[in-house]
């Protein structure tokens, strides 16, 4: 089925975006990312360790930029200025690559987004030519404000980053999905495959996850499960589910032709 996810005018076959943190080593990172089928992978931008063995393998060796679309993030940034500075460095680092994930956090305990700072950073980045995908609260008004600024995707949390608590407020997600003209991705909170399927069934355009795969007992197996869940959820959404009927049961087998009747 040809049903690409289009972000900022570019088509992707996979609706699963994955993070590259928390894996045991780069070999496991690569095997999990490949099993997930993801084409877009998030990366963090950090100071290089001066004096460290520069021949040691790096993320770029495990996941070559020729095979994957890198999505640099602003993880652990708490102000708009820090986030903007980080992404400008990322653009220089990645040869002018301008598709980025903005997240401006408000609190180290919840890692909830600081929406005023997020909006401020989004505005600066969009004006500076970046294509900005934004981690945000599951608030339809904030999502609409981001869209008005010109971001290329809104990415509400389903529950707290790294919590694995699943989709806690599907109704808010639905409000965001129904009004959005840009892709909506669930970013954060997915714990297992059914959570990812539910996100897509609701009409999310994609899902971004890291911990649900990396912290599974078998990350590579879970990555494959997530790939299938995202595909199943998308197909169920496109197929259109049957209406829920609370008032009566309807048998699937014919009512006539019963023996002895």
């Amino acid at each position: 089925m040809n049903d690409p996810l289009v972000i900022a005018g570019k088509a992707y076959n996979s609706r699963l975006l994955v993070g590259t943190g928390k894996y045991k080593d780069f070999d496991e990172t690569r095997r999990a990312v490949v099993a997930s089928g993801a084409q877009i992978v998030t990366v963090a931008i950090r100071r290089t360790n001066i004096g460290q063995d520069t021949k040691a393998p790096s993320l770029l060796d495990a996941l070559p930029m020729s095979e994957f679309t890198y999505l640099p993030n602003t993880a652990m940034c708490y102000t708009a200025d820090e986030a903007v500075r980080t992404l400008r460095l990322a653009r220089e680092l990645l040869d002018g690559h301008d598709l980025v994930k903005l997240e401006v956090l408000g609190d180290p305990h919840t890692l909830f987004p600081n929406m005023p700072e997020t909006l401020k950073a989004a505005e600066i980045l969009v004006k500076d030519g970046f294509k900005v995908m934004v981690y945000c609260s599951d608030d339809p008004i904030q999502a609409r404000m981001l869209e008005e600024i010109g971001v290329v995707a809104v990415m509400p949390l389903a529950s707290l980053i790294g919590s694995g608590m699943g989709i806690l407020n599907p109704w808010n997600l639905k409000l965001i999905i129904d009004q959005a003209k840009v892709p909506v991705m669930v970013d954060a909170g997915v714990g297992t495959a059914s959570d990812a399927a539910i996100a897509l069934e609701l009409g999310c355009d994609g899902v971004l996850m890291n911990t649900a795969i990396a912290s599974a007992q078998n990350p590579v197996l879970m990555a494959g499960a997530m790939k299938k869940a995202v595909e199943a959820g998308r197909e169920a959404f496109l197929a259109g589910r049957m209406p829920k009927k609370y008032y009566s049961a309807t048998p699937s087998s014919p009512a006539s032709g019963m023996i002895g009747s």
Partner: protein
Amino acid sequence: MLQLTINGESRQFVSVTSISDLLIELSLIGKRVAVERNGEIVPRGMHAATALDSGDQLEIVVAVGGG
């Protein structure tokens, strides 16, 4: 003698004049890094032509695993 602050650490160099020299000295030449000097990004193409002064603050960053 050049006194630099690199990624928050104070370092001294004798035979370094440009950003390219510094990257050679740190065995980072040819590696995918981005460099900021005193808060301004120095594009890769300008590393050789950008002279360093004592007291400069440098940030050298790479891509690492993250969500």
